[in-house]
């Protein structure tokens, strides 16, 4: 098992190197600007300096990684979006002009709006409800695990699963998709669900909701557990029913976390393309921005200019969320 040994050694080395950085850099900072044991203006000067530096030491690896892995590509995207398909010739804003004239793009924007309205809301709500409910029953952990399971399934696997759910066979023959089987069992006519324009968007959303509810549930259940028990007890005594406690006491107290989950899923919705790619690849009017971008980027050699232009649009769409977060953050700081 030399491979296993190698794996263990590299893993340890990687993790330790990272831990070492933090220990060593802090130690060094305390060495270079000592304040312990010193007194007078020198100490307080050192202290000022080191407390100005320390946050950056704490953040340095993260900021570096963010800069290299995310910020740099963002600039690269913006640059590419102003160039032609091979990324060599500058073409100005023509990619954007093309984009807004493109029917598929408009379709994607419309669909994306649908997704943004539905998926974060439904996943967060269900995740919240499940988190709250499972906390009260003895088999809650089992329930949670089962609901979490979809998170653990890769998108490919998920696509297979849902193909089996939405599968359509002609009327009269045996349905192997459970949805159509149910419909026919109750006397309806089978439908090719994912080809029904407009509604098929919702069938695709169901998949993402199915996956993301586990995410929302895990985060929200951690938050719910942080609520001071006494406030719940006080509400019980105040005569509030389970539902009232949930909506009037618990939910407002974890508003912040709900916002985090919501933000996250919203952003995921903007990014996710695997499901659409695997289920319809944007056909039957289910195109979304992320898949459209992927399409332009890599299909048949790729058109980097247009792909990047769509990516820029996706990134611009988060600006409201960013502003909202800046507001939140400054409000918190103001209170300190």
């Amino acid at each position, binding site marked *: 098992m030399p491979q296993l040994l190698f794996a263990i050694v590299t893993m340890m080395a990687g993790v330790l190197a990272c831990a070492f950085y933090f220990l060593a850099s802090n130690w060094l900072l305390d060495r270079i600007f000592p304040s312990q044991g010193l007194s007078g203006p020198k100490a307080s000067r050192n202290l000022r300096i080191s407390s100005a530096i320390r946050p950056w030491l704490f953040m340095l690896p993260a900021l570096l990684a963010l800069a290299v892995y995310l910020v740099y590509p963002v600039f690269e995207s913006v640059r590419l979006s102003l160039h032609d398909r091979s990324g060599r010739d500058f073409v100005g804003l023509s990619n954007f002009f093309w984009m807004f004239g493109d029917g598929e793009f408009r379709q994607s924007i419309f669909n994306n709006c649908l997704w943004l309205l539905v998926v974060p809301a439904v996943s967060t709500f269900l995740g919240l409800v499940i988190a709250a409910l499972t906390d009260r029953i003895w088999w809650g952990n089992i329930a949670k695990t089962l609901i979490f399971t979809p998170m653990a399934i890769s998108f490919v696997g998920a696509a297979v699963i849902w193909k089996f759910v939405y599968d359509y066979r002609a009327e009269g023959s045996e349905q192997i998709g459970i949805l159509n089987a149910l419909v026919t069992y109750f006397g309806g006519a089978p439908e090719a669900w994912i080809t029904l324009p407009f509604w098929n968007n919702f069938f695709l959303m169901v998949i993402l909701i199915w996956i993301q509810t586990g995410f929302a549930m895990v985060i929200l259940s951690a938050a719910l557990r942080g609520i001071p028990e006494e406030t719940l007890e*006080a509400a019980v005594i105040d005569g*509030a029913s389970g539902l009232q406690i949930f909506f009037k006491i618990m939910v407002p107290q974890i508003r912040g976390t709900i916002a985090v989950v919501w933000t996250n899923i919203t952003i995921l919705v903007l990014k996710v393309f695997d499901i659409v790619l695997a289920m319809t690849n944007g056909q039957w009017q289910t195109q979304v921005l992320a898949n459209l971008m992927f399409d332009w980027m890599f299909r048949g050699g790729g058109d980097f200019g247009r792909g990047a232009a769509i990516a820029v649009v996706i990134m611009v769409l988060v600006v409201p969320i960013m502003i909202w977060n800046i507001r939140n953050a400054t409000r918190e700081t103001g209170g300190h």
Partner: protein
Amino acid sequence: MTGLVLKDIRKSFGAVDVIHGIDLDIKQGEFIVFVGPSGCGKSTLLRMIAGLEEITGGDLLIDGERVNDVPPSQRGIAMVFQSYALYPHMTVYENMAFGMRIARESRQEIDRRVRAAAETLQLTKYLDRLPKALSGGQRQRVAIGRAICRNPKVFLFDEPLSNLDAALRVATRIEIARLAERMADTTMIYVTHDQVEAMTLADRIVVLSAGHIEQVGAPLELYEHPDNLFVARFLGSPAMNVIPASVTATGATTTVELKGGATATLAIATAPGEAGKSASFGVRPEDLRITTDGDFLFEGTVSIVEALGEVTLLYIEGLVEGEPIIAKIPGIQPVARGESVRFTAERSKLHLFDDSGKSYRAR
């Protein structure tokens, strides 16, 4: 009839037993105060009555009905928590209104009651603040206000005044007393550490110690006739002075010899068999008087003088090992540290406990 009956109530947290069988009858409209050392289980008992803590054993009856399994909201109680338990996301007003909103009271009624309670508790200025922008005492007042606003059958208070300043404490205490008077049918159960609160508010005081009841009775009864050493020392501040003694003469009055050589005669009848037994002699600091007579109880050297203005505390070291004898003399006393002082006390105010701690009076 909203009587409360506790029958052999027990509670354990896992393997730790914290309540060892409490029997108690509480009549409707009674004001009961639980006192006891920290950690003796007062809060736990209260929480069991509220329904917040499962009852491990025994029966809890409200109105003659067993409510062990009735949810808190159905028991008709209001509670003030030791740790405030305010809703952090609601303003003071909303905190107080919450219970009534749940009960679907009319808007005006809610407003009226909240403002009345806020007025009483001097919270009117803060009605629009969130709890986190309040001081400790202000938070506690909100918690009280929240309970006052509701009209429960049983009122539970868990040390509601512990964070208030003296003036406000007195005011709030009197307010609670008035409340109790106004709502004569409402049973009140009140946990406190404060002697004054316990003595002034209670119809009956329940002294708890390590999960069981030491004595139940009217305040003055407990103060004047403690059943045992624990109760005697627990009520009164500073605590009753206790001096090891041995019984030298029995009969209609009893004479004991105190450690240190002094003798005292008490207006307590004892059986002849008690002679020679070791006992504990007790006298409250406030019952001691300074005397220059030859007829004194004991004499000692003052080691600390604490002048509180209204009274002066004298600490007399050397009589009992380890613990000073304390005397509480009214007014500001011109006694200096190191001075030797003689003390006396009325016979009827002396206490005697047998070696198991039981009062001879209660035997």
